[in-house]
């Protein structure tokens, strides 16, 4: 009974979360130069515009070029740090912890300015590497917080068991700890990616010459915003849906085949 209520509740929450999509996808098909909802007439012109406007395409690609490595770096270092923080006790741990989460405490505009001044000295302005670093730093606190929450519950004798049976610290992590914290690591990787994918202010500062997707959209917002942005979002949503669907399909196929064996 209460399960049913809970599922209904979840459906509402999901609907709420998905509302922007339900708006954005129709908008992407409007034939108007405004974000018109509900659309009065339909067209594919904004999709055409997206694929013809090399700016938008390049911006999308650049966002991935930045976001994926940034997410990997942030998740890797963040997870390691979470392990270090939950496993050791040392003087000054509080300070290290504060340092770990401070990148999201300091307003992005201040980080952006500070990083610009530093990157200027290091000649990293406008380099992808610089922005990847910057976004890794902004995303790392997520990994630290999310992963350490799960680690607090983790039964460490499992790690002991792995160690004594011949796994070094790294393999212990990989074979035993990691599977247990995988949901958290996964969550933090996803969030890290989207932190970068949606980050505007630092990107505005430290990039020059190239634009990430949020920067491109921000430009539009200054003067005119047209439904291309909706088309971009719709394409990304479609791509992930297809990608994930395909992945699940392949996975179930693979497990079925394994079972048949």
């Amino acid at each position, binding site marked *: 009974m209460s399960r049913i209520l809970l599922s209904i509740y979840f459906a509402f929450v999901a609907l709420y979360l998905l509302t922007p999509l339900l708006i954005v996808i129709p908008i992407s098909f409007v034939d108007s130069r405004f974000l018109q909802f509900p659309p009065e007439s339909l067209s594919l012109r904004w999709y055409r515009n997206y694929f013809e406007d090399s700016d938008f395409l390049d911006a999308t690609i650049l966002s991935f070029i930045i976001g994926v490595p940034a997410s990997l770096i942030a998740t890797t270092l963040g997870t390691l740090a979470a392990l270090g923080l939950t496993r050791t006790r040392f003087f000054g741990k509080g300070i290290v912890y504060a*340092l770990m989460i401070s990148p999201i405490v*300091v307003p992005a*505009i201040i*980080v952006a300015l500070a*990083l610009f001044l530093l990157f200027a000295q290091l000649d990293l302005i406008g380099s992808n590497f610089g922005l990847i670093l910057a976004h890794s730093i902004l995303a790392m606190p997520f990994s630290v917080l999310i992963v350490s929450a799960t680690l607090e*519950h983790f039964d460490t004798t499992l790690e002991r068991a792995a160690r004594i049976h011949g796994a070094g610290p790294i393999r212990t992590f990989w074979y035993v700890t990691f599977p247990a914290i995988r949901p958290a690591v996964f969550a933090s990787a996803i*969030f890290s990616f989207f932190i970068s994918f949606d980050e505007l202010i630092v990107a505005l500062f430290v990039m020059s010459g190239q634009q990430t997707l949020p920067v491109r959209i921000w430009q539009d917002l200054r003067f005119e915003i047209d439904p291309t942005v909706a088309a971009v979002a719709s394409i990304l949503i479609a791509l*992930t849906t297809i990608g994930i669907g395909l992945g699940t399909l392949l996975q179930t196929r693979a497990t079925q085949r394994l079972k048949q064996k």
Partner: protein
Amino acid sequence: MCTSPGHPDIKSVCIVERSSVLGERQNFLKGNLRIRGHALLAFVKRLTADQSFVLLVPAVVLLLIFFAYPLIQLMKMSVFDPNFTTAHFEKFFSRPVYPRVLFNTVKLTAIVTLLCFIIGYPAAYFLATVRSRIRPFLIFLILLPLWVSILVRSYSWMAVLGREGLINSLLIALGVTTEPIPMLYTTGAVYVAMVQIMLPIMILTSYSVMVEIDNGLIKAARVLGASPFRAFLFVYFPLSLSGARNGSIIIFILSMGFFITPALVGGRKDLMIGNLIVFQIEELLNWGFASAIGLILLVSTVLIVLMLRFILDAATPGAPKRRSKEPV
């Protein structure tokens, strides 16, 4: 190594090696020093045996070089402009606007965090307890909105909440109201938009802790007389709280620095401290004052987060306060 004059214990190790050549005469000395050498060796070994802190090194180095150092450089401006001055801080507190905006920001942020907790926690619970086959699909649904840029999402709320938007059209069609109800450009709209942005964080952080909770404990609670609800309240909830707590902290911190969404969907009063900082940096080039506001924001965020942690820890009675952590 034996030429190193620095550390007395290192020297003693060297002497031990040499003295064995020097022979019997120094035997008594040798014994003494060997003990000290051993102590050093043991110390070094213990340090390296406890490898866990090594894990912190990459993150700490990265943060020190690319975050703490430049930030401190910038923050210096709030008190040295170019000579030592407290003018910026005085200004912040002498004009009522700034503390007021700060207070507004905290209030808005607190409500957003609370809403995320209230809405997100049951959803995460559902996710953690649902049949594991459909779980990936549900998680996927929750993550899907992240592909839509926050800027664009703000616009989509216009289409929902606006005077001629989805909800008002519906209400008018149903005859609930004749005049559109103002929803867009109110603080309520800010909550709707911000919670939508932050909610996935709450759900996933809570979920990732919830799935790890040992079901046997719930069984134990039940058989000991707890109704499903109380088993949840006294066992599941406290055990799951670390996830929700971290989710709340993340959301709180993020929201404190947020300003674009409130500016786009909020009313005139929904001004965030982030707006002021941007204005000082971008429009007035008054970086000293901007740094001062930033520092104040930083300090207040940290204080509130510490308070939040403290309260949440206190809310979980008997939470392990002192754990003995041993190297693994």
